[in-house]
């Protein structure tokens, strides 16, 4: 689509029109009248987080914490990096950026089922039938969106899905799910002119308010808030951020001509317009069979290129100190190699990558034993990771959310920032 702007009318002008009363004598439509006109301004020093989600559970023992010489070691060799640690030989590009990135090698998370693990790692809480906890992206959205008045697009974007839900924080903080191709469906109101949209919304407001006032709980009000966001989005020039194809071809090439690469590039563009949390999904890690071939031929080269390109790109734009990059899945995989040359689910000792955002780079935090089955240092929970991210993003750790039933819940489940990364 193209920006919804009549040729001779700038955005501010349009908004004024929309906000003014229409041909019908219906009160001015209130969604649109508070919008900030300085929307296009890029805030360079705004904090953000990119979560690279490796859905299925990556074999981190073949990526970040290799065990050469162990029976569990597998086929890959470790290589030296620009940082003070070794990683897999199949991630040579990341290795060059490792001075800015670190690895936590002592994750111990106890949830080895996909659904439960995905929930736990995204929310820092174990699943509970009486409350739905928000994904951390929704927490960031909830905390930072009020401070980013000029942001007209959703503050939690999920590229490729799988990012969980906003839980008790409400639909306005739900991840906005997009494809990495940059086509946002149904954003263009197909030639409907602005007057007409305004009229429709005014009529809609009458119908909607009637239902909201008919005592049906808080869902109708939430629906109205979602519509406000959707209308903002439809009329925003920030939608350009989704158009990866407008980027310099050289940069596109650096990120990789695949969905993941485009997703990572889109993440950078979204950060530039002020989106504080972007999750990029790279699936296909549930490697019960044939783990080494799949990793070396498919998964790792894609991941390597995307993460290295984003790190490099952010660095060269002076943004890396403001953007935390976290790369993890719902759990790790068994140190032991199974009968099908695969690795199964394993949550008790695994690694994730975290860097940028002013965190210490180039280090390995924590360690596992020589076979990778046990942890020989302090271990960490998802709450500790999200507390670290909060710290890096300037989100206070004393925030307590209250579920709709009045149940208080600490941010990041009361986790503690990981000392070695923040000191």
């Amino acid at each position, binding site marked *: 689509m193209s920006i919804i702007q009549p040729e001779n009318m700038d955005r501010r002008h349009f908004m004024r029109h929309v906000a003014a009363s229409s041909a019908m*004598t219906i009160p001015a439509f209130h969604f649109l009248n508070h919008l900030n006109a300085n929307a296009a301004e890029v805030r360079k020093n705004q904090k953000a987080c990119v979560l690279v989600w490796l859905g*299925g559970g990556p074999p981190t023992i073949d990526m970040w914490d290799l065990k050469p010489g162990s029976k569990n070691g597998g086929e890959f060799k470790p290589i030296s990096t620009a940082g003070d640690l070794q990683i897999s030989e199949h991630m040579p590009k990341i290795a060059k950026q490792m001075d800015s990135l670190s690895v936590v090698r002592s994750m111990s998370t106890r949830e080895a089922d996909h659904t439960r693990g995905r929930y736990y790692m995204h929310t820092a809480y174990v699943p509970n039938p009486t409350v739905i906890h928000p994904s951390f992206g929704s927490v960031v959205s909830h905390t930072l969106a009020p401070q980013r008045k000029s942001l007209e697009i959703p503050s939690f974007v999920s590229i490729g*899905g799988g990012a969980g839900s906003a839980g008790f924080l409400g639909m306005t903080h739900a991840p906005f799910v997009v494809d990495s191709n940059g086509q946002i469906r149904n*954003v263009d109101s197909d030639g409907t002119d602005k007057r007409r949209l305004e009229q429709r919304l005014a*009529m809609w407001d*009458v119908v909607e308010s009637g239902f909201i006032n008919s*005592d049906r709980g808080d869902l109708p009000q939430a629906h109205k808030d979602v519509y406000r966001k959707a209308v903002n989005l439809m009329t925003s020039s920030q939608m350009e951020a989704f158009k990866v194809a407008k980027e310099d071809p050289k940069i596109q090439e650096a990120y990789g001509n695949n969905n993941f690469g485009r997703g990572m590039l889109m993440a950078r563009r979204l950060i530039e317009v002020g989106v504080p949390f972007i999750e990029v999904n790279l699936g296909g890690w549930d490697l019960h069979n044939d783990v080494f071939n799949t990793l070396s031929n498919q998964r790792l080269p894609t991941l390597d290129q995307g993460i290295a390109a984003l790190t490099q790109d952010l660095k060269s734009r002076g943004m890396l100190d403001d953007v935390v990059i976290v790369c993890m899945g719902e759990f790790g995989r068994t140190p032991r190699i199974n009968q099908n040359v695969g690795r199964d689910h394993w949550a008790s000792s695994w690694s994730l990558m975290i860097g940028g955002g002013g965190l210490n780079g180039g280090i390995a935090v924590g360690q596992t034993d020589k076979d990778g089955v046990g942890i020989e240092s302090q271990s960490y929970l998802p709450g500790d990771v999200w507390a670290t991210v909060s710290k890096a993003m300037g989100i206070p750790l004393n925030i307590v959310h209250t579920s709709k039933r009045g149940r208080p819940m600490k941010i990041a489940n009361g986790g503690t920032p990981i000392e070695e990364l923040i000191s």
Partner: protein
Amino acid sequence: MNDLHTHHRRLCELADCICDGRLDEAAAVELQQLIKEDESAAEVFAQYLELHSNLFWDLGTFPSDVQSSSQQDSTAPMQALMDDLLTEAALSQHVIPEDKRLVKPARRLLSGTGAILATSLALFLTFSAGILWWTQYSPAPNPNFVENNPAVEPQVIESQEEKRTEENPVLAENELPPELPKIDWDHPPLKSQPVTVNVVEGSPTQKPAEVLGVAYSNDQDVINSINERISMGWKDWQVQPSPKADDYEWARRVYLDLAGRIPTEAELNTYLNNSSEQRDQELVDQLIESPAFALQWSTTWTRLLVGRAPNERVDRLSLQKYLHEVAESNRSWSNVVEEMIAAKGNPQQNGAANFLVAHLNNQAVPATAFVAKTLMGYQIQCAQCHHHPFYALSQKEFWELNSFFKQAVVTQVDQPQEAAPTYLLQDRPTAGPTYYETRFGVMHAAFPKYNGQEVVDDEKTSRREQLAGLLTSGDDPLIAQAFVNRTWSMLFGYGFTQPVDDLGPHNPATHPELFSTLSRSFVACDYDIKRLYRWICLSEPYRLSSQMIAENREDNPAQGTPAAFSRMYFKSLSPEQLYDSLQAVAGELDDRNQQWPLHVTERDQWVSQFVSSYENDENDEENHFDGTISQALVLMNGDLVDQTIRTDQNDLLKDLVSESISDQKKFERICLTVLSRKPRHQEMALFRQIQASLRDVKSPAVRQDLLASRLSDLLWAYLNSSEFIINH
């Protein structure tokens, strides 16, 4: 913090020991110490228990061979100790300081909170009873799987629970250990427990204790039972029912639930103008027997059985055709289960085969989990591969069920290259156990075994046929319970358990007797799907309005309270229901019946934009539709809505513009068409405003155009209302 961390790690190690049965007295003392010292440790321990209580189910299914293990004869002090530990954990979790900030201490809220806390307390107690039983290593009264004997099983839990409550010294106020944090004794969970299994179902005089539900054969008996049991629950929860839904609200609901779409204006009027006293029943009967029901029901179950985006070997439409036929000829659900479990052949021809074809990847692990979860209503997938000895038992059980699928294989048929690939679901002539390895690489063998029953193990006998027989035998098998619970939840928005597919002693039903009555009656009438729908749709709770009243504001399962069904809860329209409802608005239903497969294909295409697969071995996926910005954008700008609101594409709208009735009436009819109700006062005022804006237009042609455009805008406004995308 480091200290805390060490504490928590140690705590988890000790908790592991409990589960292993390795907790000696010294370790138990240490554990007790840790929990008493530190509130957060107690919380961690409580969380640990919460997690593992999901596997309490497996605990109940303890195979008899393990009981002879060399482990100890546990002693009474150990029991008491375990009890103390568990209760302390439960208590301290509930009195962490933040909990005291519970806002708005209205009586209803407190009693609601009490319900929840009591539920979790009950859970801890249940669990504690379980652990106790285990540490004692007393022979199980019935070595069979409990899940196949549900008539007895809840009683077992109840009595254990009661016993523990009586014996438990910590529950008594005056005997609380002094070092525990101060407890607010006015806190409702400790005073009353409205949500235990026995209290909810009220009067003890009602039924003999041994029999939970009744298998009725008369429809009215079942309906009466629903009405009685649900209203007893209202008393127990101290809520009042909302008033009856008006005829408009009820008709829209029953169309959405049974026909999968809103009623057209004509259909609505037919019902409203029917002067028969039996008109509700007539409408339900008519809808259940209509092709629309077969379409709606088969759509829902196709999604539940294989998801919206299964692997390429699955012929989704073939499965839906099979289910459509089941609904049309009202074949019994047990038949469907048998046919799907034992299915063979080409999935394009044998629709029933698609269920397994969708899930036979990865050593049939997803098949095992889906059979358990979707057909039997319990969650077993965690047990596939847990490293913990506690889970090792259930791991064995998991693989015993899995072993039934050992012979099953999907092969590709050799064909000329240009032909589309064809697959076959077959049984290989193999026998013997399935092998699986524990986390530490020890290989184990699992023979097919279900409900304690071993089956014929030779190459010629189909294991799946034997499983099909086992699953569908008995007067209240799990497949009946799971189906009843799910159907109830489809019609009310919530099942008797939350989540709906997680039955078991760890997750007690809100209305156990009613649940049992429904599932037993369902079995007694040979798993008659349509009768089950009829019972529920003609019940009084189903007829209630969705409008809250002050006296049932706290009945809010969306916020975690147990569902009392004191009003109709919201159900979001599925993408399929939305699609079909838009077609109803455009009056495009005429050729649906003959050409439904074409319709389904087009609809699936549209729905696919909202689905993403998780790409893991569990074959699960997510739908990002409900209430999201993406959904709002679809309704505001999507092609489908655009077609619906255009006079050149929506014939109904076109006709309405030129019809010789007043403008006011035309606006009213838009409202009726989309929301199946009369306009509210504010909407009438809006209509007058719109009319006023047309008043000064002189040219009839221009006026007609303007009117068309206003009607179109109004239609847009109604379609975008939250009322439209909710079944309420």
